[in-house]
């Protein structure tokens, strides 16, 4: 009885997952079974139907037998002599070897079929190079020559091929794992090795990305966003990004900001037309378009951006970016304003639904 009711509770909780409503609690609704997000998810759902079907069968049979045994063969104290000393039953043994073998072979066959399907490369897919570092993400649109860190903008309905690696030939890091949670499975980031995964995003929205391989103190803080937008919005983004020229600032705050940026930040960070930086540090060229700061951690608003600039290690343990205690609050505001001034105009991601 206990076992059956517990089983019901489990099913109920699973039901909660399947019925996940978007946008509750103000945050993202992560759901790996989201059937609208990608064909990948639908493929997995299809497989799970079979597996859960067999699982339910096995579960019911074995649990039923357990319950029956508990009830029927309980020692009452009124027994006279020993129970029948059964040593075994060869036919039963064959049955409960062969039937499970058939079941698992069916599961194998269905899995193999799916794997072949998902492994086929899509011709004409847009290639995005992904690099994982402690504790941030780098994206490079190979076909367009555009680089952006921690946030990736993709057109809805177009296949993407992620080519994922760790390190850049000179600097190597540790293993991470790249996962756009509600959209497609994970793929490891391995120094010196290139892995890949393909997906066609089918639903417009902003997707929560996470690192899924223990990589250090801020493994939990190494997040990213993938913004799936209509084709024309993506076209505006990518054309704007390719054509981007860093404007010379005239506003005194921005001038001050640029001056400070060049002194304090330019050694590590890249902004197209302003600083080279180093390839193993985030690119800030389109910082003004970002909706998050600190690698997908906090909203990109002064309330979080300014403390981040001043003291990143205080917010994110183990982060490689140092603290700048010698910067005054006005200095920090200037740098923040300067960073926010770098963007492709005419894009607004604030209304995207969160998956």
């Amino acid at each position, binding site marked *: 009885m206990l*076992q059956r009711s*517990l089983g019901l509770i489990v099913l109920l*909780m*699973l039901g*909660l*997952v399947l019925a996940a409503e978007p946008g509750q*609690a103000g*945050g993202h609704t*992560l*759901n*790996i079974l989201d059937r609208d997000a990608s064909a990948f998810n639908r*493929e997995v759902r299809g497989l*799970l139907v079979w597996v859960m079907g067999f699982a339910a069968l*096995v579960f019911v049979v*074995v649990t039923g037998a*357990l319950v029956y*045994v508990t009830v029927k*063969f309980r*020692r009452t104290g009124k027994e006279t002599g*020993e129970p029948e*000393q*059964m*040593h*075994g*039953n060869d036919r*039963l043994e064959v049955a*409960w070897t062969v039937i499970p073998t058939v079941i*698992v072979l069916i*599961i*194998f066959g269905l*899995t193999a079929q*799916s*794997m*072949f399907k*998902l492994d086929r490369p899509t011709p004409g897919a847009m290639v995005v190079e992904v690099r994982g570092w402690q504790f941030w993400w780098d994206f490079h649109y190979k076909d367009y020559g555009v680089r952006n860190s921690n946030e990736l903008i993709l057109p809805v309905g177009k296949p993407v091929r992620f080519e*994922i690696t760790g390190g850049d030939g000179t600097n*190597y890091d540790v*293993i991470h794992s790249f996962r756009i*949670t509600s959209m*497609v*499975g*994970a*793929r*490891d980031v*391995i*120094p*010196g*090795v*290139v892995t890949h995964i393909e997906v066609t995003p089918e639903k417009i929205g902003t997707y929560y990305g*996470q*690192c899924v391989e*223990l*990589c*250090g*103190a801020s*493994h*939990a803080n190494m997040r990213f966003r993938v913004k799936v937008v209509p084709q024309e919005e993506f076209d505006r983004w990518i054309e704007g990004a390719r054509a981007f020229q860093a404007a010379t600032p005239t506003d005194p705050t921005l001038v001050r900001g640029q001056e400070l940026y060049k002194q304090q930040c330019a050694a590590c960070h890249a902004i197209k037309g302003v600083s080279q930086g180093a390839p193993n540090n985030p690119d800030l060229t389109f910082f003004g378009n970002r909706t998050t700061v600190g690698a997908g*951690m906090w909203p990109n608003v002064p309330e979080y951006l300014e403390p981040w600039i001043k003291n990143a290690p205080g917010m994110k*343990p*183990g982060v490689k970016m140092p603290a700048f205690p010698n910067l005054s609050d006005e200095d920090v505001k200037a740098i923040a304003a300067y960073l926010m001034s770098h963007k492709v105009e005419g894009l607004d991601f604030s209304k995207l639904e969160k998956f």
Partner: protein
Amino acid sequence: MAVATPQSTSRMGFWATVWDLLTTSDHKKVGMIYLVTSFVAFGLSGLMAVAIRWQLAGPERQFLVGDAYNQVLTLHGATMLFFFIIPAGLSGFGNFILPLMLGERDVALPRINAFAAWLFVFSAVLIYTSLFFGGAPDVGWTFYYPFSRTTGLGTDFFMMGVLLVGLSSLLGAANFAATVYNLRAKGMGLWKMPIFVWAIFATSMLSLFALAGITAASLTVLLSRKLGLTLFDPAIGGDPVLFQQFFWFYSHPAVYIMLLPYLGIAAEVASTFSRKPVFGYRFMVFALVGIAVVGFLVWAHHMFTVGESLLFQLVFVFFTVLVAVPTGVKIFNLLGTLWGGQLDFKTPLLFVMGFMFNFLLGGITGVMLAVVPFDYQVQDSYFVVAHFHNVLMAGSGFLAFAGLYYWWPKITGRMYPEFWGRVHFWLFLVGYLITFMPQYVLGFLGMPRRYYTYPDGLYLWNELNFASTVGAIILALGGIAWLIAMVQSFRQNVKAPDNPWGGYTLEWATSSPPPSYNFAVQFPTVFKSERPLYDWEKEGLKPTPVDPATIHLPAPTVWPFMTAVGLLITGIGISLAPDMGNASVGGVPGWGGWLAVGLVLFIYSLFQWALRKEYDHPVVHHTVTGKSNAWVGMAWFIVSEIALFGILIAGYLYLRLTGAAVPPEDHRPALWLALLNTFFLVASSFTVHYAHHDLRTNKFSPFKLGMLISILLGVVFFLFQIWEFAIASGHYVEALNAAGQSEAARKAALWFTAFFLIVGLHGAHVLIGGTGLTLAYAQGLAGKIDNHEQGTLEGSSMYWHLVDAVWLFIVTIFYIW
């Protein structure tokens, strides 16, 4: 010592008891060392789990963050796996119960057994010593490379600890295999052994073959940190994924090491508490062996997301789904054992029922994880965490407690309070379900594992995490109920009869607890089934009494303990040594002192041990195979050595054949020197062989001379190797420096790395083998060796021949090819 009266440790004072423990080789006391250590480890690690859940009870809590959290999760995993679930069933219950079930007085090699037990305890001490030197390891129990190369000193202690506990496991496994093979009551064929004995036997063979994987993984990480030697470094063309192949080659079979002994316990408990024989005995045995064999073919299902080819992945999917079949057979046979019985729902049986329900769920989710596209989505998520806790905690863990309550009367001589046993069980079952069922859902809702925190506002994360923490509190209460049950057992002191449950295997044929010599009877030599007490009762056969004064047991000796202490101190020294390429880590002042003291103590104790005869009275041993226990034990141990060289050489071959590692055109280690060395080593095998022959024909002087020559030939070999390495290291450094510019230099650097690693490991084995021969030589000089007691020589000469055979392989693949 001759046993005139039964031993009674309860009348000894505290210090006498301690000394007794330090000098014992009694399998029951050795089993107690493992049991106490492993259940204490469970409690300690359980508290860590509560700390983890406390941190995760709500979003963005600050109780345990960043590196501190990673340290706790690493220690939690490592402690539970290496120091609770593997040793409790295998070494704890295995040591206490196995000889009793076989009708024997002890295992094949009692003093090695004691040494392995202390080494086990000290390897745990070593890992926790890291807390005093800057912090515990924080790389996860899986210590993936390159992450494990970059972290603090805790990782060095961890690697060293894993190596030592691995050695302890190997010695224990060889011991059990030799015991099952060689020491059984007269008339007990292999097919008349209880299922628990088969389980231990299968697990021992699993361990001997599989441990090479984690030895290779931890050794290569340790050497990477200390000496900069690494096969996995992409900067010189190495492959980081190769680490994972090594690691999981052990760590998947390891989960069957964590299961099989417990399946044995389940069979015993199910049979006893239903008053029926085990259902389908032969199929139970085949299923155990099937799980062990197929379990070796599934390791890369832990690596589905690393980007291996489709074909590679398919092979592992196939075997992964297949291993569910023998596992299912075990559950069905357990059901068959219970079916039609007269079930007495005492605590041991409750835990077995709980196991069956929970393991069913865990097995199902395991098959789900074999569905690769789904695995891509839940790899390293809470779905996986829920799955492995399902099988390890609610599966094997429950059976560990089944075994504890089942054999508690036999081990402690007291009954336990049934009320508290039940409370413990129900709190654990309910607590387990509430802790881990929400975690399955969290996996579907995208929560990754090893995250010390999560943001507010993600759908249902707050609620599910909170529920899981509530479950952990319930589990903690269950732990308290367990402690109360144990304490009350001692306080109430209800004396246990010989056979409180009506069991039919031989451990129930003696007192609770058994006397030091186990049995003061000669058993009938007819074994009709695995339940001798049942069959003899039906046939009217009775054991014949034996006078305890005629029973001789091994003399107590402190040297196995001291040898283990020596290794602990040596391990601390190595852990503290400088880390090359990471100047801020390691090189703690005084490390050399630890190392020196440790080595001296180790060698001194080892020689004292060798010079201490095992028995004060000459004893004649009856063995099933006719070969000595030392011979059989070393033969099983050598399986593990072949596996170790095998796996490392396989890695080397992979790097060679894919063109990543290429020997340098010039400056490669000279072939002529290798051939000269071959002559020395092969010659020494001959001299050892003839010296051994001389001993067997009682020619003591030629024996000693032959040993001395063999040792000297080994020394010459070793000195030439040192010289060769000195030269080669210069060329290695040149290649490393040029690796950035020249592809040939990069490939040569990787080749040199493999060379130093494998040829160096062989050199270490020459050192070990030579030490073994020297021990036998010392015994010869001291007159402590003869035709009847020559275990050290039998073992060390076999080991020496292995070292020579491996050398021939090495010459071929490193010097000739």
